[in-house]
């Protein structure tokens, strides 16, 4: 498989590089040749959410210029991919030339698990991960991209991993980007509920596909000294031995 470009979301780049390396490890295991364009910065989602359409448009054009020559653009984040697939089209709707280029990129953008299952046809990565886990369905992955079966399928096939139900798995964790910063006490209530459901589940590990959700939920657990690990699905698929970072 050629022409695969890896896009690493800014939150992972800045706070959670190990997730990026987990993705690398999985892709290497599956024999996928990929490129990592060092020019990449961010998809511009924070600007979209802040209402800065002009700024987001500039960032979108840059992203498109960097990635449009690739056949596949893969990112371990649903919100980034959604931004690329949907928001870029909206931002560039009035510019026919750019819109065309955005459309091309939109068709080629994939969330990580979506890429593994739908494009590579992979059902099992092959690394082992021991433990009891449950899966949180991040809003952008579930609702904005319509991806639910793929991550669950991959997790169910991880040797050593017991997947158990999580109550209200499809309800938001309360991150919402600027929301968690600007409305902390409302956000806190929502994440508290998510954590409660995690604690009630028969699982030590909460698996999810979205770095924002991860920082949010893990941050709440550590602040309150609660047990339980939060892991990005890439980290699970990359196996218990971990990654070199």
């Amino acid at each position, binding site marked *: 498989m050629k022409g695969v470009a890896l896009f690493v979301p800014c939150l992972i780049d800045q706070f959670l590089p190990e997730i990026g390396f987990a993705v690398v490890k999985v892709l290497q295991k599956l024999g996928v040749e990929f490129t990592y364009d060092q020019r990449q910065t961010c998809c511009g989602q924070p600007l979209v*959410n802040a209402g*800065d359409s002009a700024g987001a448009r500039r*960032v979108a054009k840059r992203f498109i210029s960097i990635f449009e020559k690739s056949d596949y653009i893969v990112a371990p984040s649903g919100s980034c991919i959604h931004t690329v697939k949907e928001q870029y089209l909206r931002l560039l709707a009035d510019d026919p030339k750019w819109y065309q280029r955005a459309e091309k990129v939109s068709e080629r953008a994939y969330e990580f698990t979506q890429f593994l299952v739908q494009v590579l046809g992979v059902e099992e990565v092959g690394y082992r991960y021991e433990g009891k886990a449950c899966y949180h369905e991040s*809003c952008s992955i579930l609702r904005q991209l319509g991806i639910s079966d793929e991550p669950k399928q991959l997790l169910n096939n991880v040797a050593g991993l017991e997947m158990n139900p999580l109550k209200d798995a499809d309800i938001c964790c309360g991150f919402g980007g600027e929301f968690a910063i*600007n409305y902390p*006490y409302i956000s806190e209530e929502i994440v508290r509920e998510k954590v409660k459901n995690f604690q009630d589940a028969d699982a030590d590990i909460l698996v999810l596909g979205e770095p924002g959700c991860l920082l949010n939920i893990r941050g709440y657990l550590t602040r309150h000294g609660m047990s339980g690990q939060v892991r990005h699905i890439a980290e699970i698929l990359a196996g218990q031995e971990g990654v070199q970072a």
Partner: protein
Amino acid sequence: MKPQTEKFKELARENMSDGTQRAMLKLFPPLLKQLRDASFQDLGEEAAMEKGRRIREDAVRDLPYLLERFEDEVTKAGAKVVWARDGKEANDFILSLAKEKGCRICVKGKSMVSEEISLREALVESGIETYETDLGEFIIQLAERPPFHIVGPAINMTVKEVSDLFHEKIGSPETEDANELGGYARQFLRDKFQNADLGITGVNIAVAETGSIFLVENEGNIRYSTSGPKVHVALMGIEKVVATFTDAVHMLKLLTRSCMGMAITKYVSVINGPRKKGENDGPEELYIVILDNGRSRIYADEMLRSSLQCIKCGLCSGVCPIYATVGGYTYGWVYSGPIGAVLNPLLLGLDRARDLYHATTLCGACNRYCPAGVDLRGILLDLRAKEMTGNKTFGAKRPSLFHRLFIRFWSWALLSTFLYNMGSIAARVLTAPFVRGGKLLWMPGFSGWMKARDLPRFAPKTFHRLFAQMNEQR
């Protein structure tokens, strides 16, 4: 209704510490969702929802033509159609009509649009005895409170609170039995139903093809309001019309399921004009008041237009994590939940209600469950974009200079790998003093995060850097 949308943060705190509200919010939305899901079993959810979205999208697309046709048909049936640009015109008309016809007692069904324009208050002020007849609305009218939820305006009030309220306001005996309380309200209002000479309702669905209006309820107060009084005024926003009768029936199916998890409400009234000659009940005169009140301005904006597809079922509130935490009062005006976060700012001015469209995680559950295809999530983002540019049409005020500079700086940093990498280094250097035990204790502009949860320190090296180094070693 008087807006309090500027007080969102304050109201949120207040309502979040109200135990009965929290208890009802833990119970009601999940229950409603369960009932809603179950009620869709016999309908084929995906196809039915898709059809509903199409019907409303097409109706809004063809709106002026449908309104004209609706007017033609309902006028042929003997009704009179009145057009009002804003609340003042609508209220003035209804008041002068009531005066002309000598109406002294008015029974009113639930109507959100009437709350937008404070119609009840205007009637009361002009000396007309006016009663909200939907039990939930009756309770909040007596209690002088805003609605807690679009469908259950007073469900958060305990039985005792309602008993005390009725005891005080209508002189009924105190009781712990909800049934008895219902009975006292029934007794009180029955007399009004019998003697009212003006009935005012909203409109759930208006039909262009036939000039019909559909009204749904469970109690019977709307049937009374549209059968007893000699004058019936039906108040509707311009967006309430659909093309055909069968379109209306389909939306009816989605409305009752989304609203209450019911295949059909206890009563559905399909009204096609005033009473016909020889009939002994039904109104002598039917007036349809078609109200703009800011909707045509919304219509003109392509991004906002889908908000007019809303059929006011309230399900978006039921699935919204923010609503589930702060409750209906916090939204500070007629509409609550996601549709409130969209309509309150659009109708009142973005500047007066900015918290409403900022206090959202954009989770998209509302979009997923909306039977009418309102792009709530997209509109919420668009409201933020309109605020950023200080959109005058919708009363937005640009954020502070500092805020705009910060965003501008951020966006420039993302346009250059060099700046981005420099920024990464700078962030690590500047936050170094605030790192303890692998956690970042403080960062300017992000202190809200730290109030509720930990943030890890910036990773010593970014993925960028680490990956580059890894490849250099090869």
